[in-house]
């Protein structure tokens, strides 16, 4: 009998996982949430479990007790959590284990450890991963903070141990202001979190975000599949990723990759995972954290290595041995992923909800589309605004930039605004072309006016005029002074609806 895999997720990633499940001869089961009962992924599944989550306070994908009880009821063998939702929730992984359901991912303990930054960092130190220089713990007072800051160099960032959301956080540019900043940040943290403990860290002004893809099995084999650069972010969310990174030399790749593998081995990691690094302008890099899930941007790695990461996640969960060796992994060309989010890049990336009247994706041998929607789909406010990904493969970086831009011009969506124009702007900007962009790009460089261009503006003027004209010409046909032929303006053999 076929094994039954439940996908505790929705959208494009559900479809992506179903594809791997089918390839491996598994039966794919999904939930039908009442929040989007006509979702596209339902069409690809072998079996649908109605979630009846309309009146519940959270959608099924976040409701671990319900997921498990329905999974047991439907004789599920394995659960793939996708990304987001419960994918990095150790309690969920543990609950699966307790119900003898195979959770596709690493062990609950590994998820828990990697989820706690302090634990992950102390484990990273043991294997010699470089960390951002800092106090490695709370400092008692401003004077001690200054001693650290003087040692690691300015600017530094003061962070509240209990902090979050920017509160209790200060960037200090020079020694004279550290005392004042320490006091105000500490007071703020005390007021907000009831804990005024502060630590000091070097502040990287223009960092790049790099991450190494790891794949391991349950027998201690771990390989890395090179890096991705995900420096292009807005609101700390990635929006365009590439692999490999132009900022990583082959020597660095080997070094950073080996470090990542050593770390993963030292903690007994298995399944797919990602080691995140932050890189300073001078090329020095530091360990940030490890993600224990499949990532949104995994396709760029798949494209340049030819390795199917979701297949391997499932095979590792089924106790298969990793047959790939590090020396088998070759990087072939360059790949870029553009996320299609229904957000308005002209207005602070505010989310857009409503109907997708019509959506058209580019087609080509070098183009991979992952989508959770089609023409007629509804984008609801209940879930993430990412509706699709456009992934393009090129021979080298400049080739892939050109091909991606062409692909984005072939994309069209009628009904909602998306991040596609933003991605087009990025691909044409010198900072991206020269690969000097950093995580601060959107905040420091990007302006909505950069989305505009003169050709589009002229076409917009023409369109507005045609729409107005078709009405105006008809209205004025009663005015005797001017000749009025029937409405047959150039366009207009095609007939307007007026």
């Amino acid at each position: 009998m076929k094994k039954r895999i439940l996908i505790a997720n929705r959208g494009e990633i559900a479809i992506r996982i179903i594809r791997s499940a089918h390839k491996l001869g598994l039966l794919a089961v999904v939930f039908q949430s009442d929040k989007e009962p006509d979702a596209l992924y339902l069409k690809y599944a072998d079996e649908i479990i109605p979630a009846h989550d309309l009146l519940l306070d959270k959608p099924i994908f976040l409701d671990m007790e319900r997921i498990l009880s329905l999974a047991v009821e439907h004789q599920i063998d394995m659960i793939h959590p996708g990304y987001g939702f419960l994918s990095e929730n150790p309690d969920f992984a543990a609950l699966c284990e307790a119900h003898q359901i195979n959770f596709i991912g690493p062990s609950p303990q590994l998820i828990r450890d990697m989820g706690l930054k302090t634990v992950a960092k102390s484990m990273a130190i043991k294997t010699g991963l470089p960390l951002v220089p800092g106090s490695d713990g709370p400092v008692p007072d401003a004077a001690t903070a200054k001693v650290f800051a003087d040692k690691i160099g300015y600017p530094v960032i003061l962070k509240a141990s209990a902090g979050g959301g920017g509160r209790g956080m200060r960037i200090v540019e020079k020694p004279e202001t550290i005392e004042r900043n320490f006091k105000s940040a500490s007071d703020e943290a005390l007021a907000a979190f009831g804990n005024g403990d502060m630590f000091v860290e070097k502040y990287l002004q223009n960092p790049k975000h790099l991450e190494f893809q790891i794949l391991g099995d349950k027998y201690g084999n771990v390989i890395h599949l090179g890096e991705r650069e995900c420096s292009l972010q807005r609101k700390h969310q990635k929006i365009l990723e590439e692999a490999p990174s132009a900022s990583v030399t082959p020597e660095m790749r080997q070094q950073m990759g080996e470090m990542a593998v050593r770390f993963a081995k030292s903690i007994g990691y298995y399944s797919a995972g990602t080691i995140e690094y932050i890189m300073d302008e001078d090329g020095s890099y530091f360990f940030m954290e490890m993600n224990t899930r499949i990532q949104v941007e995994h396709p760029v790695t798949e494209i340049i290595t030819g390795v199917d990461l979701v297949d391997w996640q499932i095979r590792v969960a089924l106790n298969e041995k990793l047959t790939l060796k590090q020396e088998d992994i070759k990087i072939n060309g360059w790949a870029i992923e553009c996320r299609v989010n229904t957000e308005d890049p002209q207005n602070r990336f505010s989310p857009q909800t409503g109907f997708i009247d019509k959506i058209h994706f580019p087609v080509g041998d070098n183009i991979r589309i992952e989508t959770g929607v089609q023409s007629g789909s509804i984008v609801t406010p209940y879930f993430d605004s990412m509706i699709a990904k456009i992934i393009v493969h090129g021979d080298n970086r400049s080739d892939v930039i050109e091909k991606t831009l062409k692909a984005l011009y072939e994309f069209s969506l009628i009904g909602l605004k998306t991040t596609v124009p933003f991605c087009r702007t990025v691909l044409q900007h010198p900072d991206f072309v020269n690969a000097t962009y950093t995580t601060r790009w959107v905040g420091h460089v990007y302006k909505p006016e950069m989305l505009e261009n003169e050709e589009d503006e002229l076409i917009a003027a023409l369109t507005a005029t045609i729409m107005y004209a078709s009405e105006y010409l008809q209205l004025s046909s009663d005015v005797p002074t001017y000749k009025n032929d029937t409405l047959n303006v150039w366009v207009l053999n095609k007939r307007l609806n007026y």
Partner: protein
Amino acid sequence: MGTSYIYKRDASRLFIALRENGKRYKIYIPKDSKPVINGIEKDIDFIEQEDFHYSFDWHGKRFHCELVSRDQNKAIIKVNGVEYRFSIESIFSYIRRGMINNLEKQLNDNNIIAPMPGKIVDIFLSEGDLVNEGEPILILEAMKMQNEITATCNGVIRKIRVQSGQSVMKDELLVDINSIDV
């Protein structure tokens, strides 16, 4: 006569599209040929139109347009995913507004006066017509010679003050033209 000129008589096909940032497009949509934008014919092909969506091809590129919202003569148009706001005016209301804003003197500088005494033998245009700079408006016969009197600007014929067969004095006002080049 007049076929090589860009503007083809019908002034009701000429519009001004004004963007909120002050940028202005003069758009002429002739009956049978391509649109003329800021005095230049553009090789823009109209591909399809469905409800409030239009697509055009222009030098090998496809442009997807969508009407986002519309309020009187103001419209928001989305082109390739980016929104642009325009207000549209007919050339008549644009000229009217121009005159209110004290542009009358400038506009009247383009009026046609008789360069010599003579007789009007033919008038090619009517009031309200759109005329091109250098396009003949009428023929004035003087000393047995027929002189073509041409427009000194692109504009709209506001008033024709003479009739065919009428004799005129030197410097007599023949035709009022509102320039559209302002």
